[in-house]
Each structure stands twice: as C-alpha cells, then as structure tokens.
C-alpha cells in the first residue's frame, strides 16, 4: 500500500513538473528572440523584488527561530564556576555576529534589488578604493582582536588547573563501548596506577587497576557520577577501546577520551541537581518536554522509558564510537558535601570488590 502511494506521489510530482515546464515554455513563446534564456528587464524586476522578499525571509526565520527555539541554547543557567564567563563570551560573540549578519545581508539583498538591471542603464565603472579596503580590513581586525583576547583569557582560565592550590577532587572518567564508569581516589584522593593490560575480568578488575598499588586499594568505581557542589573537580579521562568524548553540556565541559593516554578537564560544579530542578527555566523546559512526551506516550511506554521526565545532569558521549554511540550516557548528581560524603560511605572500595 505504501509502495503504491509512493509511486502515485512520484507520478504526480513528475506530472506537475512537466506541466510547469509547459507553462514556462508557453509564457516564453511570445518573446521569440534567439537569446531568450538571458535575463530580461522583466526577469530582473521580478528577481529583484524576490531578493527583497528573501531578505525579509532571512529576518523572519531568525525571529521565528528565536521565538520558538530561543529557550534551547545553553547560554544561561550554567552549573559550573567557569560556565558563566563562557556564557558571557558566547553572548558577546552572538551580538557581534547578529549585528554583522543583519547589516551585511541587508546590503547584499538591498543592492541586488536596488541596482537590478534595466536596458540602457550603465553601471558605474568603479574598480578600486584603497580607503574602503583599509576600512573593512581594520574594523574586523579590531573586533576580532577583542574577541581573541577575551577568548584566550577564558580558555586559559578553564584549562589551567593548579593542583597544589585548588586541591581538586580527582575523578577518573573511564569510557568503553558503550558506557561510562567513574573512579574516585578514595580517602587519599589519589588514583591508583592503571592500564588496560591489567584488566582481569575473572577477578572483576574491569578498569585494569594495578592490584599491588597501595593507592589503588581505596579507589571507588561507580556507574553514576556524584559530585559535591563547590569543590573543584579534576577529571582524568581514559578510554579502553576507541575515541570517546566526555561531554557535560550543563557544566560547559568537554574532553576527548583517548586510548593510550590520559586527558584531563577540571571545573567546579556550583548548582546541585535539586537546586537546578527548582530553576524556573529548567522547570519550564521540563513542563514542555513532558507535554511532548504525553503526546507520544504509547511509543515511550513501549520502549521501556519512564513517561514522566525529571531533570538530571547527563554526561554524554560526543565522539562517534560505534553502533550505540547515541546510547552512551551517565547520570551526574551534584549534591551537598554532606550528601556526597554519605553516598561515598556506602560505596565499596576496589580492594573489597576484587575477587581474590
């Protein structure tokens, strides 16, 4: 049935095309000139007006996108200390971009309309002007210099982590096809030595920790990432098979996990999961999502998901890593130091989980 429908639709499109061509050809029949496939004054006029119309369309789609999708972008409510600085830079860059976009698109399409060709008109022979060239070289230089300097300061701020001074909590993010694990350093806040060559599945040594290393004994391996609010965290990323990328959009944090090396990224979470759920923007988002989910509730229940959505931070895989790349997340829970300590007490250390 669907195949038949498709064939009918294709047929209709073909007929519509054929008819359109006939109409176009008939419309041209009167002109008779041997060179009638070159734009005439009439074509210039129509397309000139269409250029104006297109300018309106560009502005309209911009406004519509902001109206209907404006609450999507992550440029507010960052949940990490460096996040707000990064958001500011983003907003400034966006303002610059939208200003330039609005002006240049206007000039381009307005000129295309204003100077549309007419028979007998002659264009201005105007080949060069060094002053003008200098102006639109120097202005971008100044604007970009500002953005570069601001950007580099932000980048250095984010990337320079002083382990001595900040005393960050060390957490390892361990990626494999297709899940995440997190490892805490335990009481000594020091990760034990590890290498995938030491993985021993029979002994449940799944991350390849050095069983002899005293630092490894109190390490804690979990599948849900808990972080205390307010304390700097330094993530050490590892991967056991292919490239993955640890992407934590709400914390404005991302770093690739590369087999054979340890990469790192540090930030300070500032907003607990509970606080974030109370945030008006997030509440609105959750309401929207739940409304949409109710519309397709049958499908969702069938796929085994919970129908009602509650906000949670997520760690996503953001580097193509194979079949279930889309299905590789870990929940992140930011909580108060006390809650975190209580949770940590319940976890088993590496020495205790190892099957001897």
């Amino acid at each position, binding site marked *: 049935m669907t195949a038949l429908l498709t064939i009918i639709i294709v047929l209709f*499109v073909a007929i519509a*095309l054929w008819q*359109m*061509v006939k109409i176009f050809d008939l419309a041209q029949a009167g002109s008779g000139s*041997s060179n009638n496939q070159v*734009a005439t004054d009439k074509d*210039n006029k129509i397309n000139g007006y269409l250029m104006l119309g297109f300018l309106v*369309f560009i502005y309209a*789609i*911009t406004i519509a*996108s902001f109206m209907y*999708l404006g609450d*999507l*972008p992550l440029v507010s409510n960052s949940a990490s200390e460096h996040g707000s600085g990064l958001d500011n830079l983003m907003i400034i860059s966006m303002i610059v*971009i939208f200003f*330039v976009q609005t002006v*240049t698109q206007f000039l*381009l*399409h307005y*000129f295309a309309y204003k*100077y549309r*060709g*007419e028979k007998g008109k*002659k*264009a*201005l*022979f*105007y080949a060069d*002007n060094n002053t003008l*060239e200098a102006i639109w070289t120097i202005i*971008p230089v100044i604007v*970009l210099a500002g953005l*570069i300097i601001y*950007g*580099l300061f*932000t*980048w*250095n701020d*984010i990337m320079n982590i002083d382990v001595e001074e900040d005393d960050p909590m060390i957490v390892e993010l361990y990626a494999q096809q297709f899940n995440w694990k997190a490892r805490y350093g335990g009481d000594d806040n020091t990760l034990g030595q590890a290498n*995938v060559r030491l993985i021993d599945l029979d002994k449940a040594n799944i991350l390849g920790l050095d069983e002899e290393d005293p630092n490894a004994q109190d390490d804690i391996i979990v599948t849900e990432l808990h972080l205390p609010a307010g304390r700097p965290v330094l993530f050490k990323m590892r991967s*056991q*098979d*292919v490239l993955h*990328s640890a992407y934590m*959009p*709400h914390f404005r944090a*991302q770093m*690739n996990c590369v087999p*054979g*090396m340890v*990469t790192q*990224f540090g930030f300070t979470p500032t907003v607990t999961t509970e606080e974030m759920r109370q945030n008006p923007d997030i509440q609105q*988002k959750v309401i929207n999502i739940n409304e949409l*989910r109710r519309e397709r509730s049958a499908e969702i229940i069938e796929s085994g*998901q919970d129908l009602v*959505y509650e906000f949670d931070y997520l760690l996503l895989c953001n580097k*193509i890593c*194979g079949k279930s*790349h*889309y299905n590789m997340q870990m929940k992140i829970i930011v909580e108060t130091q006390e809650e975190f300590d209580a949770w940590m007490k319940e976890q088993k250390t590496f020495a205790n989980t190892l099957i001897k």
Partner: protein
Amino acid sequence: MSATAENHVHDDHEVHHHKETFVTKYIFSQDHKMIAKQYLLTGVIFMGIIGILMSLMIRMQIAWPEQPNVIFEALLGKWAPDGVMDADIYLALVTIHGTLMVFFVLTAGLSGTFSNLLIPLQIGARDMASGFLNMVSYWLFFISCVIMIMSFFVEAGPAAAGWTIYPPLSALPMAQPGSGMGMTLWLVSMAIFIASSLLGSLNYIVTVINLRTKGMSMTRLPLTIWAFFVTAVIGVISFPVLLSAALLLIMDRSFGTSFFLSDIFIQGEVLHYQGGSPVLFEHLFWFLGHPEVYIVLLPALGITSEIIATNSRKPIFGYRAMVASILAIAFLSTIVWGHHMFISGMNPFLGSVFTFTTLLIAIPSAVKAFNYITTLWKGNLQLNPAMLFSIGLVSTFITGGLTGIILGDSALDINVHDTYFVVAHFHLVMGISALYGVFAGIYHWFPRMFGRMMNKNLGYLHFWVTAICAYGVFFPMHFIGMAGLPRRYYTNSNFPLFDDTTNAQMVITIFALVGGLVQLVFLYNFLSSIFYGKKAEQNPWKSNTLEWTAPVKHIHGNWPGPLPTVYRWPYDYSKPGHEEDFVPQNVPLYEGEEELQH
C-alpha cells in the same frame, strides 16, 4: 571579437589532424573540455545524486527515528529490516554522505569540471599542459568512485567511522562492522582519489604558469583562474599528508604496526598495539582536512567573482585585494588545522595558538564579502540564474562564516564542539556555498560546454526553492546544536533530555525533503537542455573573458587559427569611452586609453 569571428572562417579541418574515434573522443579523451564534462557527469551529477539521497535518508531517520519507511526498505534492503533503519547503517550513511560530498562532489566534481574547462579557455591555451595526465587523472577518479560505491555491496557494509575516520574506531573491525572490508575499500578508494587529485592539480599549476597566451600576465588573469591556481597549490601541499595518514592506517590495520593505536582492550582481549596515538592521526587528517575546506570553497568563490562582475556589468571591486585575500586564505588555511582538535587532548597552549590563527582567517574572508557587496553597488545587475546563485553564495558564506567566530574560539568550542551547531556551520559555509558555486558555474558556462542554453525559468524556480530550503534546514539547526545535542546520534529520543528539539528536527527534515526534491527540477533542466535547449550565441552573457571568443562548436585546440592575444584585464565592464558595456580581453586599447594598473 571581430578578430576571432574572422578566425572562425578558417576551416575546422586545419586543427583536426588525426581522426577521432568514439573511444578517443568520448571515453579516453585527452581534450580538456571533454574531461570537464566527464567530471561534471560523474563527480557532480552522479555522485551528487547519491550524496543528496543519503542526506535525505539521514534526515528522515532523525525526524522519525526507528519508524518503518518504505524508502529505507527499498534502498537499504537487508540493512533496514521491515523498513527500520539499522544503527550501523545510519553511521555508514553519515560517513559516506560526508565523503562523497566533500571529496567526490565538491573537490573532484567542482575543480575537475571548472578548472579543466576554464583554465585553458580563459588563459588562451590550446589544452592542458599534459592531456594524457589529465585523462589519467579522470580515470583514476572514476576508479575511486567505483570502489567507493562498491563498498556498499560488501557483507558488513561500508565504512562507518565518520568521514574523518578517526582510529581506533576505523582501525578495528571488532569495534564496528564497517571497519572491516568497507574501511579497506574506503582507504583504497581515497588513496587512488588522492593520486587523481594530485595529477590534476599539478597539471593545473603547470598550465597556468606556462601556457598563458601573449599578454596574459598574472595580473590580467580572471579571478577564477587565480582561485583554481591557488586551490591546486593547496591541494598539492596538503593531499599528500592525507595519503600518508591513509597509508599508515592501512599499515596499522593490516600489518600490525602501531602508528595510531595503543593500549586497547576490546571484546575481552588486550590487543598488541603499543606506543601509537590517535591524536597523531587527527593532526595528519586535519592538516589536509582544513585546507580541504578552502579547496572546496576557493573555486566556488572564484566562479562567483567572475559571475558577479559579468552580471553586474561592473569591474570586480578591489581586484588586488581579492587576489591578496585568496593568497592570505590559502596561507592561513595550512596553519589552522588544530581548531578541529581543541578538546582532543592536545596541549591547551596549542589551542591558544590555533585560536589566534583561525580568527585571523576571518579578515581576508570579510574583505572578500565586502568586495562582493561593493561590486553590486551601482551596478546594472542582470539577474540570471547564475547570478542568483552567486548572490546566494555570498549570503550563505556570510551566515555560515560568522558562526566560525564561535567555533574558532577554543573556549566557546568546548560546549558546541561536535554538536549540531558544527553541522549547521560547515554545511552553510562550505557545503551550501560550494554547491551554489557549482550551480552558478553550470548555469553560466553551460552554453560554453554544450552550445545550448539552460531554461532560465526553471533555473529561477530551482534557485528560490533551494535558497529558502537551505536556510530552513540550517538556520534552526544552530539552536539545536546550542542546546547541546551531539551530532551523529542515530536517534535523539532514547533519553528525554533533547525531546524538546523533536519538532524543530521535523521542520528541518521537511525543508530538506523539499530542497532535495527541487534538485530534480535542476536535473531535468540540465539533461533536457543538453539535447533540446535553445541554441546558444557565442557570448550570451556579454562577458570579457577569452573562453567566449572561441567558437561555439567545440574543436580540439579551442581556437581555429592563432591564439588570441590579450591587451587588458578581464573586468573592463561599463568602462567610460566604450560604446558597449563590455570590452573583451582581446580587444586592443584604443589610442590614449588608459589601462588600469593592477
């Protein structure tokens, strides 16, 4: 022009020394005009259809995830059981769509068609420096196309590691099925493709340097030729690096070396690889990969420069600045590759350096955009379909280029890296822009290629629907990306976080489907005009460049009789003191006429 009209009287048989058979004329041709058409049909039309079809299937899967679809069932066969697309084949579609569009359509198709057609004709040469190498270049390209298409018919499916084929995913068959035979074919195809591309590029460079006709100094070259020339130079510098990366990856895959692999535990066993680094591959890949963006874009900008000047009936504004910005872009393009790797684990200091060089590239780009706009100012614009596509190119080049300021900034890249924001950015700035360049070129030089005109009304219909759909697809996509939605996800409804993007995804897919469908109008126009189009005049657009002084009927050697001599730059449009609003390059200066010093 009158000079060539007289030359026309010389009979064709003077040039036709040896008889051409069907095989030497249409198949193993050494004539640049025929090779250009071969590239056009294989690279742009055939590979373009496949590439666009794939993108539509990708979009349908995103909008209606895991829904049975009769098109999937028909086209994907066993990879879409009951019409539901398999997750592995989704990644394969993403991979091959990227590969086909970037390399086959917009590198080989674009440069192959227009460099081949225009370099000899616009510089006043009989043919390429080496017709034989040119033919070999095309047939190597053809073989690489066949191998790439073949990979769809192997047991485990085609390569599926993304068009960037980062190891270890691309190196280990146990990591995904596509990394078996499919990836081998991908690598072999690309190695042959690179050989083809290098032969082509060397030929272009030698031809432009050595075979310019009398009077055609470098400063009298049309901007098209400048762009093709510089593109070829970038290609010769950067493609060998990708070749080396591909060869090293083949070694890692088949001969047990460890260039890119180390410490891997997969499917219950430790592999022997030790000491290599995937980051090394990323460096090698992007050393080509970024210049590649400009290999795709510069020819399109060159074509646009020529078409905008001709149809504005005005000299291109700031010829010297245009050449300088092409050279600046070319130079900078080779030192910015690291902006693809800000979060790859390389030293953050390198991130700072690459941020700096990357944002510098915005300056020559801005100069080009403003020069195009100024060229339109006080022109007498002939809004032919080619001109519409050129203006459209400037528009998408600006829209797409501006978001580069965000992605090129290492700090901002952290949160939009590998999201739909990136997809929107590069599709607008290099995908759509370069495609517009291809379309503009085809509409403009169709009379030169086939001696007939394309239907302008169908051209208008094609442009306006395409232009609306291009913005409709890629503008909202920025917002989805800024919501943090990662690209290359088979479905986004597996967990609720991004459920509020589903409606936007649906709208995007509808725009994409309409935009894809309207390309059929172009296809019909193109194919039917080859046979039934109105016969073209010799110089239908009243253009100054030399290709329009050659006779409409193609002859081997391009001009009957002697080659034209050049007396002026190519942009003497509406020059005061001349009756007509164009003065072809082969018209001598009249007494007392001043030549612009460029």
